[in-house]
């Protein structure tokens, strides 16, 4: 049986370059979008409200709001 030493676990230069290159390039697709951030001032109206809806009632409208302002 061959003896396993540190020398056997070493990778050659080509292997090292492949692994290093892959490690550097792999995250690029994940961050590619960041370089192309589009800026907007105005937003488009949503098709629906994300929270619960309720009806406007005359009683609610007629009384002054309890919020400041």
């Amino acid at each position, binding site marked *: 049986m061959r003896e396993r030493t540190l020398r056997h676990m070493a990778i050659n230069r080509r292997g090292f370059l492949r692994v290093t290159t892959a490690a550097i390039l792999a995250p690029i697709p994940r961050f590619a*979008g*960041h370089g*192309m*951030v*589009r*800026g*907007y*001032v*105005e*937003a*488009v*109206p*949503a098709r629906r*409200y*994300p*929270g*619960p*809806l*309720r*009806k*406007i009632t005359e009683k*609610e*409208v*007629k*009384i*002054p*709001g309890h*919020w*400041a*302002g």
Partner: protein
Amino acid sequence: MTLQCNLCPKGCVIEHGQSGECRIRVNIDERLVAVTYGHPCSVHIDPVEKKPMFHFLPGTGILSIATVGCNLHCKNCQNWEISQENPENVSAEELSPERVPALAKEYGCQSVAYTYTEPLVYYEYTLDCSMRAREAGLRNVIVTAGYLNEEPLRKLYPHIDGAQIDIKSMSDAFYRDICDASLGPVLNACVLAREMGVLVEITNLVIPTLNDSDEELRKLARWVAAHLGAETPLHFSRFFPQYRMKNLPPTPSETLVRARDIAREEGLCHVYIGNLSLPDSENTYCPACKQLLIERRGFSVLTNNIKYGKCPCGKELYGIWQ
């Protein structure tokens, strides 16, 4: 695709499915979407004095609407249940901009206020409602912290008649620490409003130990007089402990009276005290002849001697009176 919202100076970079700091501008399918458009969480008729707007159609009711969301995160926010909450957790009503003028007229209001939270972050709704209201012969008021970029303000202001702008402090450090914002854009918004013919009233919430020094109060009054004009109404408002600032006491009445005296020393003609019932703290006097023109108690107008925007002595008063 990641988007950037350039509405306010924060310039939030928003990932897919996420919202900006205001919680209501969301990146949905690579489009910036205003999720509260047409869905106010509060619709009420308030006395215009509650805004507080003292030089704008005194004694009238104003249809006041607000959606969820704010781009500031003040530790002392009075309306934090709606301003600092996600829209998913707050119920709202359906009210399209086309219906707003009809609703205002149905209840006899001459004007519409975009208030309670931050009308500048539900910008598209404020803009569309104010355009519709104008077309219907109504006036528009925004009650705002004024933290917005210049370009959208230039587009909005022509449709706005009155702006109640909250200058929270004259210290940039205060804005950073307490509100998560900065002072410069707020002052620019005030000056731009004045330049574009919007009636401006300023409010300053006086908080013990944080912004109640003589120097800071004087700096505020001096800035208002120099950049907005001595006839610009300035309201000093009383602080009450709430939200994330329960460690400080309510503002003593002496502090508010001192603030008013300092502002008057700096030449301001109309200085009011709010959130506190003090005799003669909410009345309007003529800057020329010193005659009592409008007597107020709470949110009620008891007497109004202004005729066609003028004092009986002939002095024209800053404001929208009819």
